[in-house]
């Protein structure tokens, strides 16, 4: 059965797992999705990714592949027929990989920093950093897209997936902090790109509903705040 040959271990809220959903959709590959509970990880997950014990994991012909960027490239290579995910030219592939590294190592770290920043000043600084990062990526978008809809041109590809998976969490940060981060005035290219990305055939049916994500985030942050308050509370004699 073709479907059971390809399995994805992920969670509905994970932007990294979303990357795998989208990439398999682009290639029209049938797969089985296993929704993991990160509080009680499955034996399969622990065996498939013993080092990091994280989602997503792609399992193909019973062999696991971990790390979302490695998975994206694997999908492109294991299912080489069109449409392709990475550009064909080595230089453009290098440019795409460079920006993927920037988005994952720098920009996403800043986005996470918004949640962990304490106090109004630190929050503002963290939000400013996220916005500044988007301005840098806006310039990259201009160069990569060359006037077309997506980083990859006419169709979504590697860099679109790498950044696009964070749009839901970007919305969460905007709503929780009552700010605009993806600003149509400062980043017109990215603002237009975001709308088109979410409407793409390989994205729209797998992208989590952003308000559901917001509810989930509110619940998680509330639980974290309560746990912290308990730790800091004076003992109850």
């Amino acid at each position: 059965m073709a479907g059971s040959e390809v399995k994805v271990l992920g969670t509905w809220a994970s932007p990294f797992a979303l990357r795998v959903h989208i990439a398999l959709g682009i290639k029209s590959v049938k797969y089985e999705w296993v929704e993991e509970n990160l509080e009680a990880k499955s034996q399969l997950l622990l065996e498939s990714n013993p080092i990091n014990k994280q989602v997503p994991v792609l399992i193909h012909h019973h062999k696991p592949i971990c790390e979302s960027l490695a998975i994206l490239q694997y999908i492109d290579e294991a299912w080489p027929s069109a449409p392709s995910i990475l550009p064909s030219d080595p230089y453009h592939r290098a440019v795409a990989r460079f920006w993927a590294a920037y988005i994952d190592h720098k920009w996403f770290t800043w986005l996470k920093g918004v949640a962990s920043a304490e106090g109004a000043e630190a929050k503002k600084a963290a939000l400013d950093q996220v916005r500044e990062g988007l301005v840098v990526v806006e310039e990259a978008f201009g160069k990569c897209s060359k006037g077309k809809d997506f980083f990859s041109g006419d169709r979504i590809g590697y860099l679109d997936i790498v950044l696009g998976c964070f749009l839901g969490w970007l919305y969460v940060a905007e709503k929780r902090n009552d700010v605009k981060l993806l600003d149509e005035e400062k980043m017109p290219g990215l603002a237009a790109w975001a709308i088109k990305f979410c409407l793409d055939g390989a994205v729209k049916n797998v992208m989590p509903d952003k308000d559901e994500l917001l509810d989930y985030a509110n619940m998680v942050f509330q639980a974290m705040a309560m746990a912290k308050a308990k730790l800091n509370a004076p003992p109850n004699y």
Partner: protein
Amino acid sequence: MGEEVKLFRTWSSPFALRIVWALRIKAIEYETVFEDISNKSPSLLQCNPVHGKVPVLLHNGRPIAESLVILEYIDEAWKQAPLLPVDPHERAMARFWAKFGDDKVLGSIWSVFIKQGKEQEEAMVPAMENLKFLEEELKGKKFFGGDTIGFVDLALGWLANLIGLLEEIVGLKVVDGEKLPLLSAWMQEFGDAPIIKDNWPARDRMILKFQALRDATIAAASK
């Protein structure tokens, strides 16, 4: 062939060394531009405006930055002596291990190096865990790439030189030949391979540099 290949590097950067090795393995002729990090050249800042860091490879006027990205580029632009395997699953594993090296191993070893006393003891735990994973991965292999040096060997190659230096500076054994025999053997094999051996930066200069870095970090932490 009319190809222009330039590498911007510093004398000590382990990330730049990866590129030197790759270019030597593929027998690619190139020009080196040594950068002074405290006084970066306009050319470097133009080629890598986002990070302003080395290494940067300039190929026929087009810059590529980020050492692992550069390694993949070199492998794709020059087909001889391939660095990555052919099989997609093996390629994915190679990319995984390179990322593990940069994300986890490097940081955990650095932690041991910049700490002292009890904190250093505690930092040894995750460092040893990470090194044990590498030891496991070497089972039945001479190099991470198999019989010959490959992508993962280049990505982890800094271990073969830096570990010995750091051990000398802090007076601590990190890669014990008894506890990590395969990793120990790999460090020797890799470190002594002709292409690799010729390119290690001057040892005494490295000792001075890293001693100073450790002292400065410890001083800053105790303020």
